[in-house]
């Protein structure tokens, strides 16, 4: 019964994952009359968008579902794949349902995509969301607050509801609840990875990019109940690995399944970080916008896209390895991803110093052949099982 329930939920998520024309968003708009605002990885102030009555819609490219024609005419061969499929989908009308798009400051490619957007869609809201690399509330905090206030005004000019502190407070609470549920599923996977296969968890996270937050939270609850009751999910002899580097352009679903089939339990990862970006609940008392700013500055995940102010590069990854009881690390980055690939030598150094086994490979969102990766991951998992301590 519960197996079927979980399967049905995941099937729904998979439909949403393949819904590149954003029909679910279209239906939401027809139902509510609200605005839909797209955003690219990694972080966007979804709480603020929600508080103004709009739907924040996460856009993560076209995966391996889109044939790229126009996108390749926009980019040279040495630029990553995500912007190609994103602009392809935009130019073929798939994103017409979006009333605007936010481009968070994570790398030069996404930054310049905001410029392409402005040139191609001059009537639409296209906003580069500059986030501070100075994390002092009096300096970077003031800048971020002004950015968010400016965004809020722009949303209002486009037809969103005006900013109201009480509405933002309610939105912060809803997203806090959502993050709690996601964290709980991550913990369940960490403790009993056979109950929460990563490909399922990944699809659940992806669903959160297009569903209203309360619907997504309900979905997470249903899934958790279903898998906890499911007696057919039993432990396998797999190696516990932490997968890092896949925070922007996402690997194809087939690659995640391949890694699991190759003998890996993925017990921590970097997928779809927007749903886990804040490491604790955003404060609800006091000025909610200030609380959102503080959460970004002081309680966000470590990321290659954020300046490492303390110079402790790699220690966060080593901590995550310990916390997740991972036996090895898979560096799994998209080709030509500056943040991931420039960061990697620094984190590898920490991983090596800590004596943690690792392996690395690259992918593109439309990678179609997994045989080599399967063999590499399988060998890595085998070596962990042979030469490290007992696996889960």
């Amino acid at each position, binding site marked *: 019964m519960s197996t079927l329930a979980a399967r049905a939920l995941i099937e729904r998520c998979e439909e949403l994952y393949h819904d590149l024309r954003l029909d679910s968003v279209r239906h939401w708009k027809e139902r509510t009359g609200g605005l839909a605002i797209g955003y690219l990885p990694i972080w966007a102030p979804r709480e603020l968008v929600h508080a103004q009555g709009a739907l924040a819609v996460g856009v993560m490219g076209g995966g391996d579902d889109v044939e790229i024609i126009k996108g390749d*005419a*926009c*980019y*040279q061969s*040495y*630029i990553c794949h995500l*912007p190609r499929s994103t602009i392809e989908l935009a130019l073929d009308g798939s994103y017409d349902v979006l009333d605007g798009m936010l481009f968070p*400051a*994570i*790398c*030069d*490619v996404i*930054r*310049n*995509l*905001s*410029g*392409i957007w*402005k*040139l*191609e869609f001059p009537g639409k809201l296209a*906003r*580069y969301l*500059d986030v*501070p*690399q*100075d994390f*002092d509330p*009096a*300096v*970077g905090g*003031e*800048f971020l607050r*002004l*950015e968010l206030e*400016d965004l809020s005004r722009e949303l209002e000019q486009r037809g969103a509801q005006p900013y109201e502190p009480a509405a933002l407070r309610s939105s912060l609470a809803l997203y806090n609840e959502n993050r709690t549920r996601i964290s709980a599923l991550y913990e369940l996977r960490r403790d009993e990875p056979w109950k929460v296969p990563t490909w399922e968890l990944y699809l659940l996270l992806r669903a959160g990019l297009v569903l209203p937050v309360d619907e997504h939270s309900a979905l997470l609850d249903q899934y958790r109940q279903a898998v906890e009751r499911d007696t057919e999910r039993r432990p396998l002899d797999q190696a516990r690995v932490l997968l890092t580097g896949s925070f922007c352009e996402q690997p194809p679903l087939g690659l995640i399944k391949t890694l699991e089939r190759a003998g890996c339990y993925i017990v921590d990862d970097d997928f779809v970080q927007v749903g886990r970006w804040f490491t604790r609940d955003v404060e609800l008392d006091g000025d909610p916008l200030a609380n959102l700013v503080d959460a970004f500055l002081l309680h966000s995940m470590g990321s*290659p896209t954020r*300046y*490492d*102010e303390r*110079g402790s*590069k790699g220690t966060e990854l080593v901590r995550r390895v310990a916390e997740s009881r991972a036996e090895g690390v898979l560096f799994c980055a998209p*080709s*030509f*991803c*500056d*943040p991931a*690939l*420039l*960061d*990697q*030598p*620094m984190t*590898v*150094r920490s991983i090596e110093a800590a004596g943690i086994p690792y392996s690395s490979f*690259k992918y593109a969102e439309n990678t179609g052949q997994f045989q080599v990766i399967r063999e590499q991951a399988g060998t890595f998992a085998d070596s962990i099982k042979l030469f490290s301590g007992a696996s889960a």
Partner: protein
Amino acid sequence: MSTTTMAPLKDRSQLRQKQMIAAHFARLARTAESGEKSVYTFVPGNLTELVRNFDLLPVLPEINALQSSMRGKSKEYIALAEKLGHSEDVCSYVKCDIGMLKSGNVGPTGERLPAPDLLLLSYTGCFTFMKWFELLRQEYGAPTVMLHVPYQADGVITDAMRRYVVAQLEKKVIPALEKVSGKKFDLDKLREQLRLSAQAEDDLAWVLHSAKHRPSPIDAYFGGVYYIGPMFSAFRGTQDAVDYYRELRAEVQERLDAGLGPVTPAGTMEHEKFRVVVEGPPNWTSFNEFWRMFADEGAVVVASTYTKVGGFYDFGYRHDPEHPLESLADYCLGCYTNLDLGTRVAVLCRYLEEYDADGLLVHSVKSCNSFSAGQLVMLAEVEKRTGRPVGFLESDLVDPRYFSAANLKNRLESYFQMVAQKRAGARR
């Protein structure tokens, strides 16, 4: 052949610049004895006046990388960095720098560079800068101070952006410089430095504008990289820079008076056949060979965007002694790679018009996503707006594996044939 056959000559100003650079690197090599301290920083958004306000010596890793490349060293440096785990996909400047460091940190003049006493991360217009200095910090263990310069996403400097940069200068950068130098910040000295900067900037802007003449007395891309040298590196705000630009201006005036074209690797260009605007950085591994491909076609670059990465002076920006920190903020915010694509398109269209150019060539480099991502769209947009012929070339900054001479020459020849045909068609 549109050039004379005489051996390439160096301009007087070029020789002066060489001496300035040699003296600077000699000073860097002697820091162990002199006790002077060095600050590593980047070209775009560099705060040379502020660094020198504390009598600290600037070191610019991008310039070291390109100099290594021109000396034929980048191939081995990059190979070493890749062997150490740096991806083939990322910026070759970074790998060249890491390789140089791992090979003994010998600078362009053959002398060893000092380790940084401070890494001043001027984070302007390039994401890679942040990772580059995180990497160097891990290598050197040097203190690091970040100056985050917001991106001009709408082609406008807002008060919020300016305030944010000034606040970082006051609260982060200046205290870090005070700490490393042991000296107090001297505002009067900074005003005087900025006055000297503005004086030199006037002359540089005049030199860049001289390309509006026919024939152009300068090449504003290949020659331009020499002209911007002192301004973009360690000398802005010094009397040396003022003297250099005064001499350069006089030299260019002489060429104008004599009706001469620019000096190229093939000699003085006698017949200017084509006038083009170039977007993107040059290739450094085969710099003269690349330049010669243009010169052989009788093509002069009359305006380029690369020569604006370290400051946009030809449209009027000047450092302002009356508003020192605000002026430094505006300088950082206004560097070319910190401008949105729409503004970059507008700049290119303006250059094509004001410099009466035949067309636009984009030189796209694999290493630099800040420049390259979006260039194909920009190219199409410029063609749409101006109707002038556009062309696209690809290679890299300092990785020789990506420089294909035959391919580039072929593309350039085809492009100039197209321009000639278009011109002939217009005459008929």
